[in-house]
């Protein structure tokens, strides 16, 4: 990778998160770019423009490469037709079901609730499905994509005890099920499951044996007790909790000058 690999000093938490996301991308993969989420979108594009020239981006029902774009025209929705100007090919939305792996090798899943085994809930909050306290938007394509992709990432835009609960009221996407290293295989579910849970406070991963959620790093300025106090289940805390690594000067420059030209990550 060319450019300045010195770590940057001045960046926002969203820029940090985008950088973290970018480091999850592997060159040559297919990667769905969820247009509606600024941070993952920017992170995937950052990977593409720096380390991963051979990813095949899935953008709004098209496949493309954006290597040659000096600056990204913004695209913020999964129905905006304008990114189709970059298309190398289209798929129909129903095509994805024919072979989800041809859409993406990775995916980002959100949740109204996420439990200690990484199971997540987009259906609603409440005990009675027929009379929910809060009805959610629905599963979209998350359960099928999370089932089929090689691995997926949990991503939430706030970190509190309403989201991080001991047990989801409903499960729309399986993480590690009831836990354990065989938590997925005993359900007959493929893929390596949720790898990290990415929040505005920290990055969490899963203990290799129990598959319980574990703190991996805290973002600059965040303390471990702050994470624990905002998490509704008992989070595993390793001895050493590093600070999440931020972008290099080069990454930050690419983010700001070629990707996030409207400054959504700096707001």
């Amino acid at each position, binding site marked *: 990778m060319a450019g300045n690999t010195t770590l940057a000093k001045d960046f926002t938490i969203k820029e940090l998160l985008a950088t973290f996301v970018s480091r999850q991308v592997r060159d040559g993969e297919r990667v769905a770019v969820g247009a*509606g989420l600024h941070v993952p979108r920017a992170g995937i594009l950052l990977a593409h423009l720096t380390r991963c020239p051979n990813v095949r981006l899935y953008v709004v*029902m*098209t496949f493309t490469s954006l290597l040659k774009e000096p600056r990204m025209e913004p695209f*913020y*929705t*999964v*129905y*905006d*037709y*304008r990114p*189709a100007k970059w298309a190398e090919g*289209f*798929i*129909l*939305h*129903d095509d*994805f*079901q024919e072979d*989800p792996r041809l859409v993406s090798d990775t995916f980002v899943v959100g949740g109204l609730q996420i439990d200690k085994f990484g199971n997540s*809930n987009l*259906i*609603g909050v409440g005990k009675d*499905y*027929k*009379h*929910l*306290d*809060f*009805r*959610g*938007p*629905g*599963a*979209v*394509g*998350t*359960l*099928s994509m*999370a*089932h*089929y992709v090689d691995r997926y990432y949990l991503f939430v835009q706030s970190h509190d005890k309403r989201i991080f609960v001991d047990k989801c009221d*409903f*499960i*729309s*996407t*399986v993480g590690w*099920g009831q836990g354990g290293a065989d938590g997925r295989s005993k*359900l*007959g*579910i493929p893929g390596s499951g949720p790898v990290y849970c990415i929040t505005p406070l920290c990055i969490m991963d899963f203990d290799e044996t129990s598959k319980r959620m574990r703190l991996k790093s805290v973002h600059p300025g965040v303390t471990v007790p702050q994470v624990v106090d905002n998490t509704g289940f008992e989070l595993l805390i390793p001895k050493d909790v590093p600070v999440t690594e931020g972008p290099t000067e080069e990454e930050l420059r690419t983010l700001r000058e070629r990707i996030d030209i409207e400054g959504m990550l700096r707001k």
Partner: protein
Amino acid sequence: MLPERKSLVLDEHAAAALFRDGMTIAIGGFINSSHPMALVRQLIRRGIKNLTVVGAASGGLDLDLLIAAGCVKKLVTTYMGGEHYCPVAPFFRIAAQRGELDIFECDEGMFYCALRAAAQRLPSTPWKAGIGTSFPEINPEIKLYNDPVSGEPMLAIPAIKPDLAIIYAAHSDAFGNVQHIGTGFGDRAMWRAADKTIAQVERIIPNEEVRKNPLTTSLVGVDAVVRAPYGSHPFAAPGYYIEDAGHIREYVDAGNAFAKKGDRGPINAYLEKYILKPKTHEDYLETIGIRRLISLHEY
């Protein structure tokens, strides 16, 4: 005289005369794009009730509007929101919370399983994703079984056969050869599954134009074609116009007044102004105004 082909073009009233209470209707498009809104407004204007509404996957505020207007008994969808305009569709949310709406709870993979089963005339098709989730429990129409070849646990997603699909596309000839701009999202799956399909289009083009680019014919033969320029408004139309953000916010505000304060005043005013008072799609467009419409032209 040599035989001639019959035109399949209907005006919006003739098309709407096909609507019946209690029908299963699939509605094309995707979130805030490509919904056949001239026909959706006709559904409301005619007071059609007890519909089973299918999709789209993912659905959006077009379906929420039908719920607000009291047309919907059952909903088959994977997502009911408006992306950044609102995280959860307001009338859907309240109706669901009150148990007033039957929901066929599914994700996009399951949604297309149900449509494919209908198109293939199969009682169900299998899906594996969903094992270990709450879906088999909250949607009792989905059955757990063991695959007859491998023995492993599977979900059987039942066929959902729309009586009618109404979809929006850029172009069609008079003989029902539809050409979307872009992918057409999941409209093809609806067309295959439904008994009949009505395509509402921005423009009707000559058959000779269709033949210039037959690989882009996305639906080869729908049953009726309705011409309605700006017909996806307030939603986007690929290649023609972007969504009308102001109008969508007006709707969402009306929805929030109901969802947060129980006030149906704003939505009733919305329905009256934009749907019940205008008798035709042209009347609706006059209500929106030409300045607003041309301000939305894409790019």
